[in-house]
């Protein structure tokens, strides 16, 4: 995932409503009206948040007759966790190597 896309996706997740929308969509597709139900927000406000999530690729919306259900793009979300896992793995490896370096130095003294 290019860095600019990561910026957009992480920025989109910086809003509690948008995170709640993704959590809801993790349990199944839903229309904007259905998404709005648990919130004290207008459908327009929910539409705005869905738009932000669509633009960064975390959500897609399709047409089914008169309904326009939203779907979580889990593969896209997985890219974010992959980025985090990569960082974690890099430092795990690096600290293993540091420990070997320090232990080796100690033995050589």
């Amino acid at each position, binding site marked *: 995932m290019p*860095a600019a896309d990561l*910026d957009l996706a*992480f*920025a989109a*997740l*910086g*809003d*509690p409503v948008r*995170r709640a929308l*993704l*959590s809801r969509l*993790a*349990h199944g597709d839903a229309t904007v009206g259905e998404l709005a139900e648990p919130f004290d927000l207008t459908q327009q406000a929910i539409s705005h948040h869905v738009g932000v999530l669509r633009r960064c690729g975390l959500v897609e919306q399709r047409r089914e007759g008169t309904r326009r259900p939203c779907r*979580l793009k*889990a593969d896209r*979300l*997985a890219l*974010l*966790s992959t980025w*985090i896992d990569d*960082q*974690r793995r*890099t*430092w*795990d*490896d*690096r*600290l*293993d*190597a*540091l*420990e*070997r*370096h*320090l*232990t080796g*130095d*100690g033995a050589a003294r």
Partner: protein
Amino acid sequence: MTTADLRGDELIAARHLPADAERVWTAFTSAAGIAAFWGGSHATVAPESVTVDLRVGGEFALDTRAPSGATRRLRFLYVRITAPHELVFDEPVTGLRTTVTIRPTGDGTDLTVHQRRLPPELRTRQAADGLASILDALATYLENP
């Protein structure tokens, strides 16, 4: 043993090391030390590629070589230097900020590496908890499609 977690808005790796603080500090701030461990287990760092200008505003840089032969130049700018306890540096390309903290213990040192990269909007506890919950939701989703 390393613990490495996404905790709040930070990635934190922590490790107890059987060496005194001065030696750990030297490993992080000398060309020989950086060459020895910066590549981790999957990349090598040629000692002659490492440059260190240890002053605030100075940089250290190195080439990593992956098993495929691909090399990458990494550069980091020193932001804060408090020998031998704290080292803060930024990667100018990504804005990634790394803070290395070295604390002496009875039999060695406790080393902590904090990494921050998330954009300003996410640098709140609430947002970080939210991100963690998103990843939990993802795991739940993947387990129960």
